[in-house]
């Protein structure tokens, strides 16, 4: 007979542990591909660099492929290792997180498509707030993924508050573009393009919140929504204030 204490130092499931670590590394790699895509796509828009925009589209295919590769690995691990408890929560959450990351990559691709569709048309205004939104979103994503790897519940619960900054910038961009449209109706299409860009970046920050929720779930088993003031933002829009 062996007691718990006698065997607690024995490293059981070493192979499984190794494979879990590989999955975590892959998720981080996917995350950094997405971070790069978001920064690059906004930079390409800022410079109106169509060639760079096309490169973003190619990079998105790699992001999608990476997501499917990780998903495949996860399926095999679930099927062959029958994960339980923390392992199960981790692997199931990875499945969610890679889906969130892949969608964030799609937002970057969407911005690249807008850049391409704009053709020769100049930007309606120099981009100031939009690159800020991108930078905050990418910072949030980076910190969220670090919190995921370290299962840092405290950071995961605090990060979504930063979403408010992105929302505030979005609000600012929205008002500014509306001013252009009111003054000159011919700017509608160009204003609309930039509004979509800002909207995509606003959604990136929202999806970071989803990743944070998964991190809390992995660490604690609690599946709860982390509240940001995002809802309040939309309430104020609805009221027209």
């Amino acid at each position, binding site marked *: 007979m*062996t007691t718990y204490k006698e065997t607690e130092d024995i490293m059981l499931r070493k192979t499984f542990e190794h494979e879990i670590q590989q999955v975590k590394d892959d998720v981080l790699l996917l995350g950094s591909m997405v971070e790069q895509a978001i920064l690059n796509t906004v930079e390409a828009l800022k410079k109106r660099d169509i060639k760079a925009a096309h490169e973003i589209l190619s990079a998105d295919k790699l992001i999608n492929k990476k997501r499917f590769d990780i998903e495949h690995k996860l399926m095999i691990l679930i099927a062959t290792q029958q994960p339980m408890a923390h392992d199960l929560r981790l692997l199931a959450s990875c499945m969610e997180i890679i889906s969130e990351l892949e969608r964030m990559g799609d937002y970057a691709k969407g911005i690249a498509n807008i850049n391409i569709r704009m053709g020769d048309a100049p930007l309606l205004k120099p981009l100031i707030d939009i690159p800020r939104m991108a930078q905050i979103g990418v910072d949030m994503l980076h910190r969220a993924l670090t919190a995921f790897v370290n299962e840092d519940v405290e950071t995961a619960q605090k990060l979504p508050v930063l979403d408010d900054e992105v929302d505030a910038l979005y609000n600012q961009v929205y008002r500014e573009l509306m001013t252009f449209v009111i003054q000159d109706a011919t700017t509608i299409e160009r204003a609309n393009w930039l509004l979509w860009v800002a909207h995509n970046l606003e959604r990136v920050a929202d999806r970071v919140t989803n990743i944070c929720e998964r991190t809390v779930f992995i660490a604690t088993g609690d599946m709860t929504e982390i509240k940001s003031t995002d809802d309040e933002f939309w309430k104020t829009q609805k009221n027209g204030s």
Partner: protein
Amino acid sequence: MAIISRSDRRERQSPASHVFGPAQETKGDLVVAQSLSNHENAKHVLEAKGLGIYYGDFRAVADVNIPIKRHKITAIIGPSGCGKSTLLRAFNRMNELVPGTNIEGEVLFDGENLYDSVVDPVEVRYRIGMVFQKPNPFPKSIYENIAWGARIHGFKGKMDDLVESCLRQAALWDEVKDKLNQSGLALSGGQQQRLCIARTLAVQPEVILMDEPASALDPIATLKIEELMQELKKNYTIVIVTHNMQQAARVSDYTAMMMLTDREAHSGTVIEFDETTRIFTNPKDKRTEDYVTGRFG
């Protein structure tokens, strides 16, 4: 009285009414169910309270406090040698067949202590049946495997109906109906195990204890037993000891996690009892977490 004194035994109803209905619908048991309906523990068919089990001076199991809920499947899991089977056998006084066995605390069956001096252990084992790891049919015909226990138990109804009912409940009827006079030993391992379950049902138990019932079976036979358990729990309460954690996760509603806690004394106890979904997704005790994720065994 719910159980089970020696004087009661002769007066018990014949199990005829059970042939076409579940045990708890028989007249005698229905009275018990009604009498318990206002009781807060009415859903507990069995309950271990401060239960310790000794083999001589050796305390194999210490201080177990768990309820066994009616019409649910409760799994007992844990590493080898932690006292799972010993605890299971305490639920129908099977341990007493080992000389020198003693217990402390109590096991309540429908609210009454199974170990009370007026309780007849033989009667206990009828009401709380057991299925073992290795299929052990009697070296008799399939028909007699079912009929023999019931006959000894004083069954006066139509034996053919009882045999058919038990074999149907054990999901074996269609496979054996044309060869009821063949030896039970001629069946496959999985069929033999279902025959043993059918044999248990013939004496009208309320609870079925299963000690690794599928560990000697192939995967298909195992799944048949597991499906059968889901059917049986509509009418019976099941407690299963299993080393197969996926099996515990698949079949049970509640799980008791056992572990040796006293390193010197090698005593095992239940360290966590909860809904199975909780035990396998988010257990509270780190030792349970380590066991179900395969970090300790």
